[in-house]
Each structure stands twice: as structure tokens, then as C-alpha cells.
């Protein structure tokens, strides 16, 4: 049984293709209707970092003439394996699932 929560799976799947900033990941979650507070989101990312599934770093950038730091994340090899395992698990379960017929549960 896969232990990854759906939010963690969503974040890691978004990071498989490219490195992304925390702000962008939050916008991605918001597009799926998830509106956690910023501290709650970065706390979840910190837990993923501690688990070794993602890596985070600060990136210095110039915005409107001011230097600001941005937290950027990328998925690790272990994170990629975890995403693949989770995806395969749900694909297999979906393929094995029988279609629900109308009125069969009555």
C-alpha cells in the first residue's frame, strides 16, 4: 500500500519534469482547490525534504530592483521512484477495478 498523501504525490509529480519554486507549487495546488497557508505548505515541503524525496535550495533573484530569495525544489531519485510506485499502484488498482453497474449495490 502506498503511503504518499495525495498532496505530496501531486507536488512530487509536478517536480519530476523540472525544478520549481515554492510559489509556483502553491499556485499548482491552488489550481486543484487546495488552499493551505504558506507556513503549512512549506512545513509539508520540509517533511518531504527530511524524508529525502525532494531537495530544496534558496535562489537569489532580482525583483523590481530588490534582491529577494526564492525557495526552489527538485525531486530526488528516491522521490522519482516513489512517484512511479504510487502511480503504478493506482493504475493497477484502476485496471483491476470492476465497473460499478447501476443498481448493483441495492
Amino acid at each position, binding site marked *: 500500500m502506498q503511503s504518499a498523501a495525495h498532496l505530496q504525490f501531486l507536488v512530487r509529480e509536478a517536480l519530476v519534469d523540472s525544478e520549481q519554486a515554492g510559489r509556483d507549487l502553491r499556485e499548482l495546488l491552488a489550481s486543484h482547490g487546495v488552499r493551505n*497557508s*504558506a*507556513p503549512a505548505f*512549506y512545513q509539508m515541503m520540509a517533511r518531504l525534504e527530511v524524508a529525502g524525496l525532494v531537495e530544496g535550495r*534558496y535562489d537569489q533573484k532580482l525583483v523590481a530592483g530588490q534582491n*529577494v530569495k526564492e525557495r526552489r525544489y527538485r525531486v530526488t531519485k528516491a522521490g522519482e521512484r516513489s512517484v512511479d510506485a504510487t502511480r503504478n499502484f493506482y493504475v493497477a488498482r484502476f485496471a483491476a477495478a470492476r465497473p460499478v453497474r447501476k443498481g448493483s449495490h441495492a
Partner: protein
Amino acid sequence: MPDRWIAWCRRLAPPSVRDEAFDPSVEDLVQAACAHATGPGRLARLAAGLRLRARVLVVALQCRRLAPAANMSARELMVVARRLWRQPRFTASVVLTLALGLGANLTVFTFVDAFLIAPLPVPSPGALVRAGEARENGEVDITSYLNYRDGRDAARPALDLAAHAETMALVGPAEASEARPVEVVSGNYFRVLGVAPQRGRLLSDADDTAELAHPVAVISDRYWRSRLGGRTDVVGQPVFINGSRFEIIGVAVGVQRHLRRAAHRSLGAGDHAAGGEAEGTDAGAPGVGMVVDDRPDGAGHHDHRGRARVVARGRRD
């Protein structure tokens, strides 16, 4: 950029989530504020700054709510409460174990406090020392009454020595007597301790000098209340000790915690009647300890103790 405000709010965030949650969250806010700070007006910049400060403060408060320690402790407390509620037998055993353990500890500590820690219930407990007779091996032991009397006379006026001996006796009338601890004391005992009488009077030196006079006793406040019903006319009433009749001359207040004795009597007044015939009557017969009173001559307690030892050693044999 309000760096000082951010630093202050950062201190509000718990250290456990400060680096992981607060710093990147506030960087997001700052980045958004910089990107949208396009208003040229002074009022717009002021409003944007206030908005940013408020949001940083909200982030700090959200970090406090995220603190894992607080959340975990509250959650664990709820789990413990639910488990105890669902297992009444286990809860009862836990409560019973705690009650027995706490009760036993409280009882032991009460005795230790009464006998070892709490100061003597006398006006000047620091001015009292225990004295004894010095043995050849350097130990200090109890001494005889005659040795005490010679030492007391030789030590005056620098020291005031009082003697006391503990024993058990049958107290009360013959048909209803009970074994209780009593203390045989010298006439100056209460004066040395500085204890005041609650009723009547206490023993005095005159009770020592009156050889074979009518025996008198001072009862403790606890004995007065528990056995004599706290009657107001207790002074002058008889009390029987080992079958001999003693006259109650007073009640000592506040000494029962220290002395824990039911009655006190003078050595000179009734030593033949209270089951202690040998005590304090022959030189060399052990039986009495001594209490030394401080005198206002500026000498320290160690000097008193040394002086008492010297006095006792000089009278041995």
C-alpha cells in the same frame, strides 16, 4: 523592506518551524510585494507596506499554530484521556497506585520533616545545642544525673544546662492506663527551651530543690486535648504515672511536635515514683541527656559544646 518588522515576527515563530516554514513563506510575500509595488504615490507605498507587515504577522501566528510540540502534546493528551475513559479498570489501578505512592511518600516526608528538617518549636532554636559526656574513644554519650548537676553548677553563668531522659510509662488511672512516652526533665528544662505555658505554670528550679516533695507534672497540649477533653480546670487535677499520683501544674503549648511526650516531671520531685528510680540518682548511672542554652555572652555554639564536654569529662568517676 521592513527588515526589523520581519525580524521581530520571526522571533514569534517557534524555532522548530522557523527555518522551514516562516522564512520561505515571508520570502514569497516580499517577492509578491516587490512585484506589485508599482504605485508611485506615497500613500500607496505606505498602504502596501502596512499590508505586508500585517501578512508577515499572520504568517508568524500561523507558524505558532503549526508548532509540532504544542500540537503533539494536545493531541497526546486527548488520546490519553480517551484511553483512560474507555478502560476504567486500568484507570482505577493507575489512580490507586498513584494514591498509594503519593500517600506513602507524604507520610515518610512528614516524619522526616518533623524530626529532621523542621526547626524546634521554641523561640530560639539556633541557640540550643545537645551536650553529652565525652568517652575515651571520642564519642559523646548520655551522662548521669549527678554528673549533669556538677556540670551545670560549674558551667554557670556562661552556660545553662538542662537534663532530660525519655522513657515509657503507664499513664492514667489503673483501670484505664495506657503506655505512653514520658520525659523526665530537670527543673530548668522549660526555661532553657524558652517555652511558655499554655495553662498553669511550668517546672522551675524550685521543683528540683524540693527533695521528695509532692510530685508534679506538665502535660502536653496534645494529651490535654485528646485524653482530658481540653477541660479548663485541668490545673491541679491528678494524673497517674505508673500508678503514682502526680499533680498537673500546667500545659505546655507548642512543644508536642518537638517533644512528642505526654507528660513532663521534675527529677527532684518524683523520681522515685515514675518507674525511673535508678535514673538520675547515682553517679555513673546512665540516663540523662543535656540541652545547653545560649547565654548573651557572645560565645558561639561550638564553644558551648566544647565547654560542656570539658565540664562533663572533669566530673567522670
